[in-house]
């Protein structure tokens, strides 16, 4: 029997509280939470690579693959089961990452960042030029079912929030173990000193490759859930500004904890929603100032507020 540690128990408790809160929350908030947590999964993929010293400016590629797999599964293959659709997206992203990773893991720093962006933009270009896939307009996603159960229109958003929370929790629990396990820690070691990793008898490329494929899977899951929540997909999912948004959220949260991307995605969604509401013509400026503030005052992200408080508490006791 696997024992759960304090972080895992806190993650489970947070998911339960959020799911319970969703039952009494207004529709707009349920939608905002679903979108924020689905996008947080994509951000987890960015953070996984940041821990290995790589910044992906093209994570929108896998977000889009996950979304389009869900959309195309329903539209062209008549699939409606949520588990099947999401699995198809994850599988497609992993297969693509297995191919692209062979090239991408040869590069570091800005070259990796730009090459990841290039692949994402290639997909964007292909989708824009594909009338069968709705070209720039994209297309709608069919209503989903789950193991034969078809939720009513009123209950579907809450059901999807629950599914997103379950998926997010599962990913968070796995990533919590992953960052403490061999590959997770060794990815940090690659970031610190690749030469030493090689002279310990390990392949830094294999470690980065495994991490890249795992990050693609997690991001595709987020893409699939976003498509189901929004009910629509379009090539914008692979556009560079979308990938930039994921990097923004990753920096906002920091890499210090598996919960950081969820918190950051939520803060981002709230700030953006209210910025658009109150200053519709300059909401980007508000986001810019937010990021500026975080980088200057919290260079390790929002999560450092918690880690600082924890450190102070430990020092006091």
């Amino acid at each position, binding site marked *: 029997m696997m024992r759960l540690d304090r972080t895992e128990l806190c993650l489970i408790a947070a998911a339960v509280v959020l799911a319970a809160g969703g039952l009494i929350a207004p529709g707009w908030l349920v939608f905002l939470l679903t979108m924020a947590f689905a996008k947080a999964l994509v951000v987890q993929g960015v953070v996984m690579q940041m821990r290995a010293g790589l910044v992906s400016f093209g994570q929108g590629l896998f977000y889009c693959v996950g979304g389009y797999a869900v959309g195309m599964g329903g539209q062209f293959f008549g699939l409606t089961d949520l588990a099947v659709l999401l699995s198809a997206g994850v599988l497609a992203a992993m297969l693509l990452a297995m191919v692209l990773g062979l090239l991408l893991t040869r590069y570091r720093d800005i070259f990796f960042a730009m090459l990841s962006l290039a692949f994402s933009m290639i997909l964007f270009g292909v989708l824009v030029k594909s009338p069968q896939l709705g070209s720039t307009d994209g297309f709608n996603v069919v209503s989903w079912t789950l193991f034969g159960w078809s939720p009513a229109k009123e209950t579907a958003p809450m059901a999807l929030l629950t599914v997103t929370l379950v998926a997010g929790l599962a990913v968070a629990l*796995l990533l919590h*173990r*992953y960052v*403490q*396990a*061999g*590959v*997770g*820690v*060794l990815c*940090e*070691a690659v970031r*610190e*000193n690749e*030469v*030493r*990793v*090689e*002279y*310990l*008898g*390990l*392949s830094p490329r*294999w*470690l980065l490759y*495994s991490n890249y494929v*795992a990050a693609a899977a997690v991001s595709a899951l987020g893409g699939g859930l976003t498509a189901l929540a929004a009910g629509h997909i379009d090539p914008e999912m692979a556009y560079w500004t979308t990938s930039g948004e994921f990097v923004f959220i990753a920096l906002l949260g920091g890499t210090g904890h598996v919960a950081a991307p969820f918190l950051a995605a939520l803060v981002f969604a709230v700030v953006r929603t209210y910025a658009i509401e109150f200053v519709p013509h300059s909401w980007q400026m508000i986001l810019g100032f937010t990021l500026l503030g975080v980088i200057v005052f919290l260079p390790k992200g929002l999560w450092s507020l918690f880690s600082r408080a924890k450190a102070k508490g430990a020092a006091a006791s």
Partner: protein
Amino acid sequence: MTAILETRALCKSFGAVTAAKDLNVRITKGEVVGVIGSNGAGKTTFINMVTGYLPPSSGEILFNGRPILGHTPRAITRAGMARSFQVAQLFPELTVLDNLLIALAAAESPRPSFLRPLRTKARIARAETILEEFRVTRFRDAVVTAVPQGARKLIDIAMALIGEPQMLLLDEPTSGVSVEEKTGLMDTVMSAVRHHGVTVLFVEHDMDVVRRYVSRLLAFYSGEIIADGPPTAVLEDQKVRDLVTGHGHGKSSQKGASA
């Protein structure tokens, strides 16, 4: 005696510069071999070629009788030849314990686990034993950047040794360490090495250190081996005194050979 490492006519050129010329070295199991030479003599180039970091221009390298030319550093490490570096190569933002745990996990499998924790009781116990052996237990939980230079050199060597290699190549283990610390550091290293029964080749500039620890000495000059034999004989060799130690004109001290 069985040769653990053998190089045959090993050469390396960087454009017009010849860094290694016709190096024929045969090291048998259990030997402690020292390598001396002035800066640019080809000592580190030799280590870099043998450990797969630099491809030789020509020649052969055999480890335990098997050719290893063209093998990656990781393949050579896994075959049983580990190395330390002139500038300690550690993971600076991680703790000393984590550095050793990583080395241990790497030694256990070339494909580390995705979910099994790095910090297991067995690994921690093994890492603590090594820390004790290298007398750096007090730095167990310190981040590497906060650890003094001498201790970093020891940790670097401990990381190479924790995987139980058959042969260890040490590139200037006492460089950057104060004169007072050198003997203590080398005593610790050699005691650990003897305990593990490892064959050692180390590059060193301090002739007192060389004389004290090695059973055989190679003198490099301008990419060639100009003397090979017991340390006393090599250090007394006129060519070595003239070209390497700089004591061919009756100087009394033999320290600071490479300065």
